[in-house]
């Protein structure tokens, strides 16, 4: 597409995270980045260095999955970044571990302070090193009530609420395996 776009993508790929190019007309953003808890701050630093501004931080709740290491929390933190000088929107997400703690990025993006407090209000996700993780939009009395956590019967699996995997990719994999055989 252009220099900035490729630069940023390669720069993020260096972090060892999962980057997917998405169809902007379909989803409204260009890149989807799956971060790990260790790479959030480095990623935010890179985004800041590339002149991205923070659009929002929010949470997302799906059915917990059984993995080898145990059960996941089913919670995710979703970040969105965009640029002032050109059309370039990025979505980044990170799974929240059992201890419900995610590193805060509010020392890099000062605006994240309120967004993270709001996410804490709504989902109960903790942000480590956050200077003031007090209730922002909800009242003190509702400190332990997190309205956007879904009831168990309403929870859906992550696959049920994501775009279907693109079929050409599946075909590629199938042909690969058959040639291997």
């Amino acid at each position, binding site marked *: 597409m252009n220099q900035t776009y490729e630069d940023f993508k390669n720069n993020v790929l260096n972090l060892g995270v999962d980057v997917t190019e998405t169809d902007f007309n379909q989803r409204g953003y260009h890149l989807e980045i799956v971060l790990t808890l260790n790479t959030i701050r480095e990623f935010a630093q890179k985004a800041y260095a590339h002149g991205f*501004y923070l659009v929002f931080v929010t949470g997302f709740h799906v059915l917990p999955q059984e993995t080898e290491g145990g059960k996941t929390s089913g919670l995710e933190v979703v970040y969105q970044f965009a640029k002032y000088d050109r059309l370039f929107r990025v979505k980044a997400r990170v799974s929240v571990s059992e201890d419900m703690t995610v590193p805060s990025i509010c020392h890099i993006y000062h605006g994240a302070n309120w967004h993270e407090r709001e996410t804490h209000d709504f989902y109960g996700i903790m942000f480590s090193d956050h200077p003031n993780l007090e209730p922002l939009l909800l009242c003190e009395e509702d400190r332990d009530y997190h309205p956007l956590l879904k009831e168990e019967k309403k929870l859906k699996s992550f696959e049920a*609420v994501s775009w279907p995997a693109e079929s050409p990719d599946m075909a590629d994999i199938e042909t690969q395996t058959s040639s291997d055989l």
Partner: protein
Amino acid sequence: MRESHFQEHNRFFLNMGPQHPSTHGVLLIVLEMDGEYVLDPQPVLGFIHRMHEKMGESRPCQGFMPNTARMDYVCALPYNHGYVSLIEKKAGIEVPKRAEYIRVITSELNRVASHLLWLGAYLLDLGAFTPILYGFDDREHILDILEDVTGSRLTYCYYRFGGVYQDIDDKFVEATRAFIKRLRKRYDIYEKLVTKNIIFIKRAENIGIIAPDMAIRYGITGPNLRGSGIAYDIRKNEPYSVYPEFDFEVPVGERGDCLDRYMVRVREMEQSLRIIEQALDNLPDGPVRSKVPKKIKLTPGDCNFAVEAARGELSYYLVGDGTGVPYRLKIRVPSYSNLSCLPELGQGILLPDLVSIMGSLDLVIPEIDR
């Protein structure tokens, strides 16, 4: 020793709001003061929090439409616009061209109304009573025009998935053209009364400077950002609806102070009028609503849609699950990020300057609290 004791003695906390006239709604700012100087202003939010996001996730998307106007009640139509466009994108609904033109015309009228109200209210904050009467007078004409076609004066629910509620008539077109003519004549009055007023300039010039780097750190958008010289407007940068068909400019300031933010908004009104004029001249014929299935199904997967509201970038981020009820709906409102810079912007300034800064940020509290 004596001096530090004196300083200790002078420090105190001051509650500005939640009923203070210059917080425009129920916003509380806890100020740590040293005499007349503000050391640390901390906004306290949530007084009118209604959890719109939860409502959006617990009812079919048609049922959420009226909610969209109740966030930013001063400029509600772009909120309608963002939501219908998002659902249309997600459910694959076509919109007739005439409907998009009507959406742009009414949205821009609403933007002018919002800026007029802001102009009056800002000057009122600074102690000038007359401009708000002029502003209200002009805004009243827009509200009358919009009331005729939408049925309400503030909390519009005029757009529908696949079009608008009803077509505009000749009366609307005439009244809009008459209003454009009227407002252009009034520019002189505003310029003499406000823009060239030395007291106003002294209260706004070089006050509350937002540097471009600060804008990035806080995610500031809209006229507050453009005042700092960055020409970022979703209508140009991420074109939606039929905006690419119109010729308009994105006014920017230089210093990023309160005066620049004022000038940007005043010049934006003229640009909105230009868009409306072009849209009225080229208004296509045809239906204003397409056929939409009774039960709208949102395909699984997430989708983001951003529009330029009067105060900046409004983003709806929706995750669908195949049913008609959004699985997740995040509403990113501009004033939330715009206000979050206040603790940094208001450090070490005089209390009257803080009032000027807050006025220039154009805050709408129901939008911040959602």
